[in-house]
Structures are given as C-alpha cells and as structure tokens.
C-alpha cells in the first residue's frame, strides 16, 4: 500500500512538472495583462523543436535551446498581435494553438517521415534522471528511504528546475523591480505609462518569460519524460495548466499546489485504468480525467473563493486622448 502511494506520488511529480512549467509561464503573461490560451500551442511547438533538434544534434541541451527558441518565437507572435496590433488575445491564442498543432505534425512528417514523430532519442540527446547520493543504499530504510530514493531522487533536471522556478517566480514577481512593474501593468497600464515606463516593452518581456517557461515544459515532454516528439503530445496539458493557473488565482505558490493536485488526479486515473476497486467496481477514469476542468469551473463559479483575474487582462492598452 505504502509502495503504491510512493509510486503514485512519484508519477504525480513527473506528471505535474509540465503543468507547473506551463502554468508558471502563463503567470508571467497574464499577470502583465496579456491573457494566453496559447500555452498548449507553445508547449507543443517546443516539444517538436526539442525533439527534432535533439534527434539531429544528439544533444539534449541543444534540443532544449531549440524548444525554448521556438516557444519564444510563438510568444512573440502573440505579443506582436496583442501588444503591437492590439488584437484580440483570445483569438491570437487560438491561432497559435492551431499553428503549432498543424506545423509540428506537418513538418514532423515532412522532415522525418515517421508518422509525425521525431526519431527516438537516447543517451545524451535526452535528459537523464539524476540519482541522488546514497539513493540506492537508502532505498530499504522504511518510509524515509522510499521517500528519498523514489520521490526526491531520480528525476531529471527539468523536474527540479520546475519546482525551483516556483520560489524564483515568487521572488521575481514580488521582490524585484521587474515584478512590481509587471504586476502593475496587468492592473493599470496607464499608471505604468505615466510613470515613464513603456507598457509595450514590459509586456513583451513578460510574454518572452512565458515563452521560455513553455519552452521548458515542451522540451520536458519530448526529451525528458518521453524519448521523442509525438504528434499532438501535449494532449490538452496546456489547458490544464491554464486551469491550474486560474485555480491558483494567479499566485505562484498556489500554482504549484494546483499543478500537484491535477498531476495527482492524472496519476490516479492512470493507475486505476481498467482496475476493479473493491466496493465501487470499475472506476470511471473519465470522471477523474475531467475533474481538473470541473474543479476549475466550480472555482470560476465562485463556489471556492473568488478568482479575480488581473484587472487589465485581456485588454490592449490604448492611450486615452486628453
């Protein structure tokens, strides 16, 4: 029973990681007043670029760089449409999701001819799991040993990066000049403008941060968790991340807990697939899979606290005349 729990928690961590990276990504953009429902697309794009680059170069790090690069490029398209041209942020996000979905599948097939996949990667082309000191020897220590060697040790570097990104993002948002300005521009861009700070440049920097983190998330999927890109491999994770971001009311630490919760639900659903649970019978896995979305809707309905989005979110900044 305990081992099962540890295993579920272990896969919770693995499954939460891409959600966490993507949700933190969304945090930067949305806190600056640029809504982003294109997290999914940026992740997918990054996964493809990372998978392709890692397969071609044989280096996971170059794969990661390519993933981040493409994700940032897509983020800049979003910025160009929403910040420079004051386009509708939702529409732009939808467009980026389709672009990424289409382009990755199309180019994947055209370049690698493996049914939309990138060639499988291994060795240096993939992020290996880091085994912590004494993980093997401590394995048999009751309780703590399992926790240490299964839960803490044995993940790849991006997992640790994701969880370190939580305190780091908190620090950036609440303890730095950039964070202060970023939060301000999401609430009242006119206040930022009259303080002599460029609203556009600030928001561009925010969406670039979003791009970088989505790049990490996508790369994690393709060259850390899996051994290559598979067509549409994000499978809605970008939207779960979005749900987690809303569920966490746009705050970094709660974002982590929301992602862990949603990751846990996913892990449980996988575990329970086709299994008979005593007293219940076969658990409808679909119900567990739908739970993150249902929870988010209930939250949005105001039944669990109130989710107040950044006030200037969704609206392009236009200088008022006089």
């Amino acid at each position, binding site marked *: 029973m305990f081992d099962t729990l540890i295993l579920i928690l272990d896969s919770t961590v693995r499954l939460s990681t891409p959600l966490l990276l993507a949700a933190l990504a969304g945090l930067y953009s949305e806190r600056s007043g640029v809504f982003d429902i294109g997290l999914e697309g940026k992740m997918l794009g990054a996964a493809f670029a990372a998978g392709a680059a890692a397969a071609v170069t044989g280096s996971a790090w170059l794969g990661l760089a390519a993933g981040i690069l493409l994700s940032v490029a897509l983020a800049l398209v979003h910025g160009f449409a929403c910040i420079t041209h004051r386009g509708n942020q939702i529409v732009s996000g939808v467009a980026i999701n389709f672009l990424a979905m289409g382009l990755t599948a199309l180019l994947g097939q055209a370049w690698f001819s493996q049914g939309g996949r990138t060639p499988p990667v291994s060795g240096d082309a993939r992020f290996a799991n880091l085994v912590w000191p004494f993980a093997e020897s401590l394995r048999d220590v009751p309780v703590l040993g399992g926790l240490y060697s299964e839960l803490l040790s044995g993940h790849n570097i991006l997992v640790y990066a994701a969880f370190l990104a939580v305190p780091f993002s908190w620090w950036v948002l609440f*303890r*730095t*000049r*950039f*964070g*202060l*300005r970023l*939060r*301000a521009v999401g*609430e*009242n861009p*006119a*206040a*930022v*403008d*009259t*303080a*002599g*700070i460029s609203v556009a440049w600030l928001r561009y920097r925010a969406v670039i941060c979003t791009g970088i983190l989505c790049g990490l998330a996508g790369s994690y999927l393709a060259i850390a968790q899996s051994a290559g890109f598979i067509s549409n491999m994000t499978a809605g994770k970008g939207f779960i991340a979005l749900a987690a971001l809303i569920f966490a009311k746009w705050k970094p630490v709660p974002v982590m807990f929301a992602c862990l919760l949603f990751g846990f639900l996913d892990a449980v659903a996988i575990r329970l697939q086709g299994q008979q649970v005593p007293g219940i019978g076969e658990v409808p896995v679909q119900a567990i899979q739908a739970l993150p979305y249902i929870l988010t809707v209930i939250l949005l309905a105001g039944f669990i606290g109130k989710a107040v989005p950044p*006030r200037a979110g969704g609206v392009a900044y236009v*200088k008022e*005349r*006089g």
Partner: protein
Amino acid sequence: MSEELAIELVGIDKRFGPVHANKNIDLKVRKGSIHGIVGENGAGKSTLMSILYGFYHADGGEIRVDGKAVSIAGSQAAIALGIGMVHQHFMLVENFTVLENVILGAEGGPVLAGGVSRARAELKRLAADYDLKVDPDAVIGDLPVGLQQRVEILKALFRGADILILDEPTGVLTPAEADHLFRILRVLRDEGKTVLLITHKLREIMAATDHVSVMRRGEIVATRKTQKTSMGELAELMVGRRVLLEVAKGPATPGRPVLQVEGLTVRDGRGVDVVRDVSLEVRAGEIVGIAGVSGNGQSQLLEAIAGIRKVRSGSVTVDGTRIDLAATEVDAARMRRLGLAHVPEDRHRMGLVTRFPECENAILGYHHDPAYGRGAFLDYDAIRTAAREKIEKYDIRPPQCMLKTANFSGGNQQKIVLAREIERDPVILLVGQPTRGVDIGAIEFIHKRLVALRDAGKGVLLVSVELDEIRALADRVLVMFDGRVVGERAPETEDSELGLLMAGAAGQEAAE
C-alpha cells in the same frame, strides 16, 4: 516669487485629425507660483498639459523648462526635467500599497528591498515637510479619494518634481478636501515649487492661484494676475462673449406629482452608501434641479430612479404607480413603460451605441414599441421614417439617419438622445448634465426644449454640476451633499448660500 520662468511655451500647436486642439500657444509660468489655467471642457487644457508631460507630441512650437529649450519625448523625460503630474483620473494601481505605488517607476534598483526602505524614509520626510500624511502600507483601494490624490502628489514629489501639474484635481473632492488640497499647494509654492492648476471652476482659480491663463477653443486668450481680475471677467473670457445663461421662461404652474422618491438609499460596490435616504417630489409642469459638487450621489440617484442601479431601500412613484425598488426586480424598460424618460449623464457610455446608425439609436430603449415593428420583428421603414422626423424637428446635422452615430458632433449626439427621450411623450424626464461637451448653439436649443417640455405639463428632474444651468432652468433647487439632500432653495438664492449647502456646511463642524 521670482521673475524667473519655470516653464515657457512658445507657439505650441497640436491637431487630432480635423480637431485643432492647441493653436499657437504661448505661456509663461513663473517659478514658485501657482498658475491656473481655466477654460471650458474641450478648450484644450488637458491636451496642452499632456504635451508638457510628454504624453503627446506637439506638431509645432517650443517648450522651455528653466530657460532651456527641451524636447519631451515621454513621461520619463518629463520626470527627468522635474515635471510631475497629478492626473484627473488617478494613475494608481488599486491593489498595491501606497509605498508600491510611490516607487513604481522610481524603484532605485533591480531588487526592491533597498529602494523600499529608502522610499519609506523619504515618504516620512515629505509627510513632515508638506503636511502630506498617508499610511505607506495602506492599500490604495481602501483609501478615500482625497488620500488617493495625496498619494499622486507624493508620487510626483518622490520623483523630485519641481513643477507640479494638477489636472482638474477637485472634480472628485469634497469642498473640505479641496480646501485642504489648496493649503497643500500653497505650502508647496512657499517651498519653491511651481504649480500648474488646470480647472474649469472659476471659484478655485480665485481661491488658489497667483496667475491665471484663460483658454478658449484651443487658444490662450488672456493671462492675468489673479488679484487683478474677477470671476466675471474670467467667465467672459472663457466663453468669448457675455453669456447670460438665461432662458426665457414664465413662472411654473405645478400640477399633480408625477415623480415621488421616498427613502432611497444606494450602496455602491465598495459598500459605501452613496445615496442616503433621499426623498423628493417632482410635479407636472415644473423643473426640479439638483445642485451639488460632482460625486455627491447625484449620478447614482438618477440611475436608481431610472431603474438602472440596484438600491438598498426606497421606492419610486411614477405618475401614481408606486414601485418598491429594493423589493422588486426593476429595469429601465419597466420605468420607461410607466412614462419615465431618461437623458443620461454620459451619452457615449450609456445613452448611445455609437457604432450604430443614427436611426437605430433613435429607438434605443423603445425598441419594443409597437410603432417600430410587429411581434418579434422590427420594421425598418417605420424606424427610418420616425428618425427622419426627429432629425427635422431637432435640426440634427447632418440629416442622415443611416450615418454612424460616432460621426455626429457632441451637440448633435445629445440632440439625438434628447429627441428620442422627449418625443415618446414621457410624464417625467430625468436629465443628467444635459449640456456637457455641447457647443453654445446647441445649449440654447436644449435649454429651450426642456422649458417647453415643462410648459407642456411634464415634470423634469435635472442634475447638473453647473450651478448656472440649474439657476437658469430650475423652478426649485435641491442641493445634494454626501448622498443626502441637504436643502431646498429657490433658484434666485445667493451663490454663497448655495455654495455653503453644496459644501455640506450643516455637517461640516462635525466632520473636522
């Protein structure tokens, strides 16, 4: 006061498309003085100040600060030159603390920690020097507007402003808060700062400034020493001719009551009662004016009576039908059916859908009227015919009922609203700020229409922040202060007496 100039503007010119907002402006502002700029809405004051603060670029002309010609590319450049601005709509982040708002843009380093403690000390010093006390850790949204404005001033001073521009600073203040503001401005002046005060209220110019420049239609038409001018002269300069806001009207013959309001209380989103236990009555054949400094609950009162705003308690009786506003679901459509028409204060935001053609706006709120269609359907032939009739009758220009409403001038847009509301033959008309942003010709027309409506035996409830307008039109004047009706007077009552009421003289001592 020295003879040195803090600011000198030479030939500043600015156009927005066809609108010539600033024409060849020359202005000299002495260092260490309070300089007022007065003019009607739309005279170009705000545009001029926005140019000075780098928000807009002038098409031509030169700006000199401390005698040196400068180019102000943006707010950052203005701040660097020691220019600070307190905007009409505060530029504050509501869920930030005072301290966070003050340091925004002047954080003093990429990491906040050091800057914050320095700012805290500086705020303490400013508070002591200029009598500007605010709790640095209070969240802006929780502060009353007077204190929020103080934060705006602190923001400017924190950035080392020597020249402070205040754009219509008293619009949202109570008279007591306004007096406090003027005291602060005098302290600032005595400490050597230069203050530019933009307003359209002559009283404030007389009370607070050393010099005054008058703007009219984008030009500066005169500059005077405040002591050597009078409100009369300034008023004349502002409008360009001696306007006697007098409308030819006979004595009222009030009939039966057409509108009765009893015990109306409105609570706003922040949980503050903005209208408190207001009762009033309007009879057929009279115009009742509500005077008051803007922001004392008049707008909410009007909206509550019109059925647009939720109330806490109170009832309205229209032409004999009593409605308990708190207990029943009321909307504007129901009130309209009872014979209540409403010309809202803000025609762009509320009274019109500017992207619709004129004829569609001519039925807004009356689109269920059987005259405009049958069953679920609208009859556009009938709608256009009716619209053309109103265009003719109200001399709306251009006379094109399919033209997009945004393309009409302010005065003509107001006529579209007025025609719509009056021509459906209401028993009571609510009117808010009927001539705001309207040219003089249209003002006369609108005033005549309202009096004609009264003479036709209808009731009119008029809200205006222009005391002169209230005087000219109303048969009885109610004064609102802090959400209450604090008195009723005849329109001939002395300025000073009405002013005292508007300033809440009754409760003043208790508040101080």
